[in-house]
């Protein structure tokens, strides 16, 4: 009986204490017609030895390729210490820190996380995490609608330069509440969202501004922030947190560094492995005046009865377990363990380390862009600045090329033809600091070979 410690003697003693002759009696309140369904279609149990071998064999078939995929998930160096500590039983198997006295480790760590994330974003307040970047954007949208004064607008300006899966996720999550997502088109020449585009659109409660955007391009965040403010809209920044080590943080966007209202994104680049798509975590920061509209858990510093510093969950009346139907969100479980890892990661790299990782990634991507664009028929789709990810156009359809690259052990990027057919044979390519010159050359050679043949 895997993981069940009851011996036959234990069972007899327990039944005697309960006063029933056998275990089935404990289920006697369940209607007989429903009882004793058997689990069918599930293989019999196996030992850890057997399952370990199965999983090792399955894992060996995966993850060995040279990866130039980004598109929302990025392969960065993660110090060994991060996960050796994060998976310590006391973090890994702890419950949500509702019993503060028995959870000071997790609580202090989250307080430090909130401090780091607000520093990185130049914002006032951070929550303790949401599920992932896409769902964090959905929560940011809902939060903005709650926070938006002076109007009952149910509209959000959502640029087409936002990750298509993010947009789709937001739609799934918010559409039950009758919220309208107004697509803000991008300029097909630049891959950017001109601030003037908003002029043609109806008023909205908030504008989402991505930095970098899905194409790796750097939006004119100051102009967009100003334009949204001029229309009375709030601003939601959607950012790559690693990029914020070198790019202007959301708290300083806009004329006079007025800053955005809400900043969100996916914390994956900060110490979270690719892991097939998750678990990652969503971060959400806001200005102080929106604190009570914030969804999710928040940790505060306080003192105990003896005046000693301690940490506790605070502002809980926003949450579903207290406020039920009137909560700011239905969120309960978040991504605590990911935040644990990410906090350790940020502490290890510090601002200098994060800046270097960001710029090294960018330098690798820049070098790769030059190499690939030098291949006959391959072109950079957009001129100008990008950040560690860029769009190429190929002289032929992308899918078969990617397939051929994969056969050569190279994951060449993300095919944009489905989400952005107007871009033609477009491919989104990424390189991070983990890629060496030799890796770049390998990609270049493989692509050239495929296109030639």
């Amino acid at each position, binding site marked *: *009986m895997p993981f069940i410690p009851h011996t036959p003697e234990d069972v007899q003693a*327990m039944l005697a204490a309960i006063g029933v002759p056998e275990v089935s009696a404990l289920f006697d309140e369940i209607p007989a017609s429903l009882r004793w369904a058997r689990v069918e279609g599930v293989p019999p149990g196996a030992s850890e030895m057997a399952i370990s071998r199965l999983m090792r064999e399955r894992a060996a078939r995966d993850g060995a390729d040279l990866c130039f995929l980004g598109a929302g998930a990025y392969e960065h160096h993660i110090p060994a210490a991060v*996960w050796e500590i994060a998976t310590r039983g006391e973090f890994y198997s702890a419950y949500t820190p509702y019993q503060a006295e*028995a959870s000071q480790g*997790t609580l202090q760590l989250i307080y430090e996380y909130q401090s780091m994330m607000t520093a990185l974003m130049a914002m006032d307040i951070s929550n303790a995490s949401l599920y992932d970047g896409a769902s964090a954007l959905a929560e940011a949208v809902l939060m903005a609608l709650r926070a938006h004064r002076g109007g009952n607008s149910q509209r959000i300006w959502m640029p087409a330069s936002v990750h298509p899966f993010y947009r789709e996720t937001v739609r799934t999550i918010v559409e039950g509440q009758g919220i309208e997502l107004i697509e803000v088109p991008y300029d097909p020449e630049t891959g950017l969202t001109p601030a003037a585009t908003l002029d043609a659109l109806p008023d909205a409660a908030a504008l989402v501004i991505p930095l970098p955007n899905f194409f790796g391009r750097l939006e004119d965040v100051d102009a967009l922030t100003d334009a949204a403010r001029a229309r009375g809209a709030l601003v939601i920044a959607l950012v790559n947190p690693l990029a*914020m080590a070198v790019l202007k943080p959301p708290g300083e966007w806009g004329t006079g560094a007025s800053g955005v209202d809400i900043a969100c994104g996916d914390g994956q680049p900060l110490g979270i492995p690719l892991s097939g*798509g998750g678990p990652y975590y969503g971060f959400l920061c806001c200005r102080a005046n929106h604190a009570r509209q914030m969804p999710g858990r928040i940790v505060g510093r306080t003192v105990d009865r003896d005046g000693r510093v301690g940490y506790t969950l605070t502002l809980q009346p926003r949450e579903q377990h207290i406020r039920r139907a009137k909560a700011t969100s239905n969120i309960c479980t978040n991504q605590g363990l990911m935040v644990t890892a990410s906090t350790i990661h940020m502490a290890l790299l510090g601002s200098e*380390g994060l800046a270097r990782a960001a710029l090294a990634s960018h330098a690798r991507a820049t070098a790769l862009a030059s190499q690939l664009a030098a291949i006959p028929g391959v072109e950079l789709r957009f001129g100008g600045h990008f950040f560690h990810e860029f769009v190429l156009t190929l002289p032929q359809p992308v899918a078969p090329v990617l397939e051929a690259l994969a056969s050569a052990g190279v994951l060449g990027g993300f095919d944009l033809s489905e989400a952005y057919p107007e871009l033609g044979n477009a491919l989104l390519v990424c390189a991070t600091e983990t890629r060496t010159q030799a890796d770049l050359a390998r990609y270049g050679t493989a692509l050239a070979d495929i296109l030639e043949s």
Partner: protein
Amino acid sequence: DSPALIFEQGAAGRRAFAQTPTVAESWDDLPPALRRSEQPQLPEVSELQVVRHYTRLSQRNFSIDTQFYPLGSCTMKYNPRACNTLAMLPGFLSRHPLAPVSRGQGFMACLYELQETLQAVTGMQAVSLTPMAGAQGELAGMAMIRAYHRARGDLARTEVLVPDAAHGTNPATAVMCGYTVREIPTDSAGDVDLEALRSAVGPHTAAIMLTNPSTLGVFERRIVEIAELVHEAGGLLYYDGANLNAILGQVRPGDMGFDVVHVNLHKTFATPHGGGGPGAGAVGVGERLRPFLPIPFVCREGEGYRWAGRTDCPQTIGRLSTFMGNAGVLLRAYVYARLLGAEGLSRVGIYATLSANYLLARLGAVGYQPAYPARRASHEFTLSLKPLTAQTGITALDVAKRLLDYGFHAPTVYFPQLVPECLLIEPTETESKQDLDRFVEAMAAIFDEAHAAPERLREAPHHLPVRRLDEVRAARELDLRWDVPTRPTQNPSA
């Protein structure tokens, strides 16, 4: 006192040098207007300082690996270490979510087989693994119900019925899906008040959200009638899987008449709680809701596996996450399911129920008052400390805090709200009888203390890193981050 914050241990320019790229690349090609003018104030510490700080912080936690957590409704069972080790194999960790499925059939096979297992144990027809927690599973379920009614042109169904004992996520989710919530009272035996339900249900009813066994720790005995009632009125039944551990392998939500169910893999399938997450809230549906499943899910094609998306499932409610939900959590749940297998999964409900009824009997003998003394416990049960409070002034909170001193995590307190001075206790199937007995001993000692030395309880805990915290101050004088001293501007890559 609490350890100094990691920020306070730093010194300007100190670094964990092995972790930073050795070369500082230029940022000259980034537009000056978009460059950061000041470095963010992150800690400046050595690798040893980081390792030591977070190792020591970890020791200030309770956890399953160190303590028994009789935490009702949370199913704090053992998280097998193999699940972690195997989900973190390098091949899985380095898999990019957008990598072609041809390069990851092993990963895909695990997810597919997990879908099949969840179908089997819930009695559902199809499963999507993408929801990232119970609450997102609820959202997915209610969104599917909404999509179902809309697809039929049945737009009048604006109301969702929720028993008053339900988890807070239920009404919150219904609201997120645009529904009005109508509470259904519980009768004195702990069942749903069938008369109240009968009068509430109607053509405006979109669904009822139920946990069975309920949060009161008892099985809803008239579930078949409830299902008939709601179905006859054109509504659907949502099963909140939070308490699935109680009946795993014994009863299937599908057989009870539920149309959709979410499964908290971080409860029933033993994936770690991680100090607050990540969880996973897979959803299973019957035939009626199958067209609306969230994408992506895994389907079989020939010898292999591929993602199913909008093309396969045009009526889908859509995506709930950027990629494939909490994939690493799903791998852990898969490993757990394989270790247990069919017979092992069946045992879970049996032994979880046995342990709960044992604790209930023992604590009743000590003098604690069961909230529903005439009922069997499911995998959990409720005590009401009201009599004790009346006699001694000692509250559920006092008992909970004192238990920490004895080395046990506290039970869930003050939930469900309809039981006054409630303790909700769930031992799970993985604690040994010795540990259950030690818990009973501690509860007995506290019962005595409540009469003999109530002050000691009111002041508890005494042996933890901090004593009771000033939560009013925490909420009033918000201190949510370390105060950053300003530092002069500099090129971050210098």
